[in-house]
């Protein structure tokens, strides 16, 4: 196929896609706003930064063992200070802002122009929100969801690569890299996006920009491993999924560390992380759905996971086969670029899961997967809609595509349910917050700390949770895992 340029003008299909994006972002945001700030992973960070200056927070978090996330802590501090006592509103608003940015950049990267684009985009948007890794970006705050931030940074990086470029784009690329890499370890994926995008012909970030971010990456490595001696995330600090079960830290020590086979464990985690994007399995390293199939438990959740993954990844495989000659000739169009960058991000993301695989960490790859599926679906529609075939074959194809789309839509509903259900858990934790803090040796020792806990608990009291008692049993079966 030739590389015919076309003006980047919006059509009515573009506006329909933007409308769908805005609606989806709004619905997800309503779910986020309904839930309280959670106790675990949120309250202690807030208490830790409360009595320190922003500079102290940055300096104290720049040399944490195994992790380099100073900007994450600075954001918690700045939001706490800026909230003027309305803690939940401040953190939730920031979360909603990140959601809006994610959807904005997602739609911008897809560049919907035609009717086929719009249909494929409707499919892609439920792939995005139905992915099991999406939940990790929305159902908890920590109190700033840094996984969501990294996904935003990476999709923004892709959009920057799609721009017409220039010095400003290169400077923005460097800034994006610095912010992402100092927010969370997986922020290094921004560099993967720049390099992969450049290699497939996206010229928004020039080779000069790529060289700048590569130099910054080298600087990051020197800072992390030589100057600060932070090292890699520790292995065996937490229970992880392995095979059909979860294994405890002691088991990891016994099976892999003591026997000198730690690299098998690393390999398992990397492969699991990569597979989870394309197969929807394993979930946090555990092959739960496969286990349920082996045990004969094909419930609705298992069925929708299998159908959705088969259709979406099947389309991707078909796309790769259909485009292999153009790729070999290094001719990449917009769809090719999205798919190849997705594979690069998934590989990079999986590599970062070497010490433990977690759905939240893979969430950035999940977003790029949805973009790749968009390309594959658009290509399939454009090809199939103009192919003469028997009526029965056409009907069968339509049924398969409808089933895939319906399965992703059901998964999206499941994500919404699970997001609301976590609010019920959060409320339970707030009722027992004093005992929990005592158990963690984190009981506030200052009046400000006590006030913070009291205020957040009062704010949690005014949220209304989803109660499984008021959800029909059939819905529990379809949307909520055991």
């Amino acid at each position, binding site marked *: *196929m*030739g*590389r*015919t*340029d*076309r003006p*980047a003008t919006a059509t009515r299909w573009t506006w329909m896609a933007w409308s769908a994006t805005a*609606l989806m972002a*709004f*619905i997800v945001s*309503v779910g986020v706003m309904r839930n309280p700030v959670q106790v675990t992973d949120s309250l202690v960070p807030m208490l830790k930064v409360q009595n320190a200056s922003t500079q102290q927070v940055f300096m104290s978090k720049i040399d944490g063992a195994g992790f380099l996330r100073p900007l994450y802590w600075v954001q918690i501090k700045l939001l706490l200070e800026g909230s003027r006592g309305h803690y939940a509103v401040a953190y939730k608003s920031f979360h909603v802002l990140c959601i809006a940015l994610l959807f904005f950049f997602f739609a911008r990267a897809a560049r919907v122009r*035609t*009717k*086929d*684009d719009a*249909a494929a985009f*409707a*499919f892609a948007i*439920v792939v995005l929100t139905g992915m099991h890794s999406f939940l990790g970006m929305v159902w908890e705050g920590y109190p700033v969801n840094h996984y969501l931030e990294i996904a935003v940074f990476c999709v923004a990086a892709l959009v920057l690569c*799609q*721009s*017409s*470029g*220039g010095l400003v*784009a290169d400077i923005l690329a460097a800034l994006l890299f610095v912010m992402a890499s100092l927010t969370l370890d997986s922020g290094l994926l921004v560099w993967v996006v720049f390099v992969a995008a450049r290699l497939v012909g*996206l010229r928004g970030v020039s080779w000069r920009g790529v060289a700048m971010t590569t130099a910054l990456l080298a600087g990051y490595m020197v800072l992390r491993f030589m100057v600060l001696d932070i090292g890699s995330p520790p292995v065996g600090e937490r229970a992880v999924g392995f095979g059909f079960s979860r294994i405890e830290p002691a088991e990891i020590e016994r099976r892999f560390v003591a026997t000198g086979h730690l690299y098998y464990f690393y390999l398992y985690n990397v492969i699991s992380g990569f597979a989870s994007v394309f197969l929807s399995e394993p979930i946090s390293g555990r092959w739960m759905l496969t286990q349920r199939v082996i045990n004969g438990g094909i419930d609705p959740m298992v069925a929708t996971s299998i159908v959705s993954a088969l259709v979406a990844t099947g389309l991707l495989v078909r796309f790769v086969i259909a485009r292999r000659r153009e790729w070999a000739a290094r001719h*990449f*169009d*917009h*769809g090719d670029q999205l798919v190849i960058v997705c594979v690069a991000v998934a590989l990079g993301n999986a590599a970062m899961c070497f010490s433990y695989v977690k759905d939240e960490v893979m969430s950035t790859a999940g977003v790029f997967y949805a973009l790749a599926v968009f*390309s594959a679906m*658009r*290509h*399939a*529609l*454009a*090809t199939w*809609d*103009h192919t003469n075939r028997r009526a029965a074959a*056409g009907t069968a194809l*339509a049924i398969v595509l*409808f089933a895939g*789309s*319906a399965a992703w*839509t059901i998964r*999206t*509903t499941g994500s*919404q349910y699970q997001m*609301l259900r976590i609010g019920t858990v959060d*409320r*339970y934790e707030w*009722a*027992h917050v004093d005992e929990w803090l005592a158990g963690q040796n984190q009981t506030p020792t200052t009046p400000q700390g006590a006030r913070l806990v009291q205020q957040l*608990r009062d704010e949690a*009291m005014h949220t*209304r*949770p*989803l*109660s499984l008692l*008021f959800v029909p049993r059939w819905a529990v079966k379809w949307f909520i895992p055991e």
Partner: protein
Amino acid sequence: MRAPETTNPSDTKPAAGGVLGRAIAVPPIAWLVVSTALVIAASFGYTPFMTPIDLTLPEAVAARDHLEILRQIESGADPNRAERVRPDLVRPGGYMMTPLEAAVASGRLDTIEFLQQRGARVDATTLPDLLCFAKQQGAADIEAYLRRQAPADFAPRCESVRLPWND
């Protein structure tokens, strides 16, 4: 900063987006429409599947919503008063129950402890009934917990105890 775009197959011919396009677009669009309608309806007070706003204290117990229990007790609700529990929350029918009875009926030992710490009475007047309810429910952990609070020779006559429910 917008780069000129390269083509994809859908650009090279009139976009038909026929049956196949509709097949994939219908479920997500229907979902968006229904979900938006539900969000709008929620702003008018219609919130299916969410905990109702007029939850009684025993109903909050049945839903294991400890924060709601706390909120109601801190707002002055009596943790010993029998109130409505709507059908299907703990039993198929709707009944009047105390919060402790609702906790026993729903088999929640942690909720019984939580209520007790916040003023619900487990004493000579309530213990026989609660023990018999727990026994009838087959809630061994609750029965054991309640027994620990009774005198050693305590032996309620469960056949004479009237359950708060009859289904």
